[in-house]
């Protein structure tokens, strides 16, 4: 059986997360350890069986951040004796007492087994909170068994912001929620607008210390750039009264304009003026054309680890004359009209399921040069010509698109050591 399907023969309900799943050696995407380490002054404690601990511990060791993580191993005796709560409490106490520096915040990650053993961890956290009033305890979860109903990454973004208290709001300050990377003014239209108007921007990935992290509670507005941040934003709206706006991470000029207008209104700022928008659109078109001419029909492959909307990017590029050959994506989360348009305009677009068992033994060679957007497509196409980014890499709006075009041109012109780069866990993670 082929490792891909043609989009023309697929339905919108496609989801590769069924059946046996394959894990490719591509490791750039962040996991919960990387995200948890973003909180300055935070300490993570993972409470799991050995098989679950191994991954998080070595992820942390690779980051050189072992001083920010401790573990409590769940053993057979805990299962038989039903003393999970005691192990959790006493283990946490010992960790706090033995750490050379008192953490301001402790994130305790329980695992699948705790759900099945009906462990009353909330009670343990109440006891710990009384015992250590100077530490904020946060219940976090590494429970992939719940991934269909409560995926771990959105839950972590929500939980790590749970320490924020409902305090009076200050004007001139906003938060970005759910971003692994800072969204700078040169690659993100919203940041550029905020900077032009002197609005302070806070996000977990760039807070200097725990107090600054806590000061995110004072912001009246949250902006979300990834679907994984929506759970946190919803929670913060309910608990803290912070309004939020989801900035759509696609490639439609009209959506950029609509979202920027809504963002401006939410912050009581003037919307970007029409001349600026028109100039940015022209620049986008010029950069896209420049890229198309350079690539001169070279095939492109796109994957979901690089950009949140791989289908939308494929559509944008196809409509601008690029030769998009394939997309690596495990579930369609983008709007159906994008899928329908691709189906009609490029029915032979290959869709690869990166989780599927057939991809393990696929022929990882490609006839002629192929430029890949993302690490997974680069691995499976065995290409050293690739855009080495994950999770949109702080790109948003016209500025983001312009930057993306520059990255594609660079990928076409410059070989990269794919084998070395794609195996680095948590690409670009500098939280250590």
């Amino acid at each position: 059986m082929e490792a891909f399907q043609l989009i023309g023969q697929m339905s919108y309900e496609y989801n590769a997360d069924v059946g046996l799943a394959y894990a490719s050696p591509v490791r750039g995407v962040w996991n919960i350890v990387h995200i948890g380490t973003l909180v300055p002054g935070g300490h993570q404690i993972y409470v799991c069986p050995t098989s679950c601990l191994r991954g998080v511990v070595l992820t942390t060791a690779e980051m050189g951040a072992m001083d920010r993580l401790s573990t409590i191993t769940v053993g057979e005796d805990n299962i038989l004796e039903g003393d999970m709560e005691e192990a959790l409490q006493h283990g946490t106490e010992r960790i706090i007492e033995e750490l050379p520096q008192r953490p301001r915040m402790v994130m305790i990650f329980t695992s699948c087994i705790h759900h099945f053993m009906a462990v009353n961890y909330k009670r343990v956290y109440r006891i710990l909170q009384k015992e250590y009033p100077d530490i904020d305890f946060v219940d976090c979860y590494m429970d992939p068994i719940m991934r269909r109903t409560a995926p771990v990454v959105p839950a972590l973004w929500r939980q790590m912001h749970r320490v924020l208290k409902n305090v009076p709001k200050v004007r001139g300050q906003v938060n970005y929620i759910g971003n692994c990377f800072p969204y700078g003014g040169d690659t993100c239209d919203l940041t550029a607008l905020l900077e032009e108007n002197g609005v302070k921007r806070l996000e977990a990935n760039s807070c200097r210390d725990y107090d600054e992290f806590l000061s995110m509670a004072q912001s009246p507005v949250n902006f979300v750039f990834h679907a994984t941040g929506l759970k946190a934003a919803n929670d913060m709206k309910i608990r803290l009264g912070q309004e939020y706006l989801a900035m759509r991470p696609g490639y439609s000029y009209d959506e950029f304009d609509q979202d920027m207008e809504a963002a401006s209104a939410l912050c009581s700022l003037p919307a970007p003026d029409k001349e600026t928008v028109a100039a940015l659109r022209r620049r986008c078109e010029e950069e896209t054309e420049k890229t198309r001419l350079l690539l001169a029909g070279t095939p492109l492959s796109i994957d979901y680890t690089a950009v949140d909307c791989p289908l939308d990017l494929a559509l944008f590029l196809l409509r601008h004359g690029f030769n998009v050959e394939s997309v690596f994506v495990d579930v369609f989360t983008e709007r159906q009209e994008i899928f329908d348009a691709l189906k009609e305009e490029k029915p032979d677009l290959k869709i690869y399921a990166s989780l599927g068992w057939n991809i393990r033994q696929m022929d990882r060679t490609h006839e002629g040069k192929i430029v890949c957007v993302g690490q997974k497509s680069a691995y499976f196409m065995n290409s050293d010509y690739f855009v080495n980014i994950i999770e949109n890499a702080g790109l948003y709006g016209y500025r983001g698109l312009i930057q993306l075009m520059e990255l594609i041109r660079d990928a076409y012109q410059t070989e990269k050591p794919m084998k070395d780069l794609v195996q680095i866990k948590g690409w670009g993670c500098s939280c250590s």
Partner: protein
Amino acid sequence: MSDYQTHVFTSTYTADVSGVCSAMYELGGMTILHDPSGCNSTYSTHDEPRWFDGKSLMFVSGLDEMTAVLGDDQVIIDDTAAAAGDLKPRFITLCGGSIPHIIAFDFKGTAHLIEKKTGIPVLPVATDGLKSYVSGVGMALTEWIKRFADPSESIWERMPAASGRGFSSAQWKKKGSSGLCVNLLGVTPLDFSINGNVQAMRAAFEDAGIPVNCCAAMGETFDSLSHIYRGAVNVVVSSAGRRPARFMEKKAGIPRVEGLPAGPDEASALMEAVRAAYEDGKSRILWQEPAEHEHWTCPQGQILVIGEEICSCAIADAINRLPAEKRGGRLAFPMWPDIDEGLPEAELIAAMRSADTVIADPLYRVVLGRAGKTRFIDFPHEAYSGRIYRKDMRLFAGTEFSAEDLLR
């Protein structure tokens, strides 16, 4: 009471599930890890150096909440059959993590049903995700040998027992005049990496005139490993090999020798022990069998070797065979993690701090901190630090290894 569960500073050894995958990697099968998710990427990222370029088959079942709650084993049966239909593996190995364990997943029954549906042999390996890789490698190799190797190929045959009871090695004798050849048991990259240790180990035996029949399970194929019973003596070169060795001893009378050719002196002693085992059919351990390690200690000012059991014992033994002046008059003491409980951190810290020199994986350095006077000698171990120090792995399993150089 010793607290083996809380690790404030230290890492963890890899789990039984990775051990299963690692042992089965080169044999042309398909390993199914029955677990929600995560164990598979841990294995393929940290524990399997052959993953990037290889095409061996290992998948996670993606067990979800509803399937677990309902005990719906039909899901994994159907999913495995679908994948096997496409990929046509020679055999299938079914192991699992902690959730199948607590919901009492029937490995044997499910394996039987998958086998019935696909016509492909299925090995049930009832791991639980709670133990170390030593357990997983041992269980997987034992199941494989049980299923695919022919004990009638053994050069040993049972003699009528004098008492009519028991299965001691005294009840076996050699058939005919088969020559001495050995199997190396417990060989995976988790203990030996991919830096030439396995080749050096094979060479140590072959240079001593002892052919290697099988190396379970690196550098072997399904077909070559199926003749493992032709080995006259099993050499347990890592503790992961102990379980299959004991099984083969009971099943076909093959004596086992525990030891590792770590340097010329250790290799020479090991070859002698192997020859003796071949002659009298009795199992041996190269060094005095260490006491159960309920309480670990290292006498003040001595050398502490931390690692996998056989390896740390062999390295310590190789050091202790040196003339006293070459080891500063000190003795080396091995320390290794328990299969169920790992290393209790408090005892580990005490032992490391009382030692004069510690030979261990670099991730243990954190225990001593920067101010300590204890000398630390890096000895990376893939089953502990994964790929982090892979480029610095030592060549320890051959006659080229020098305990003196290690201490220098």
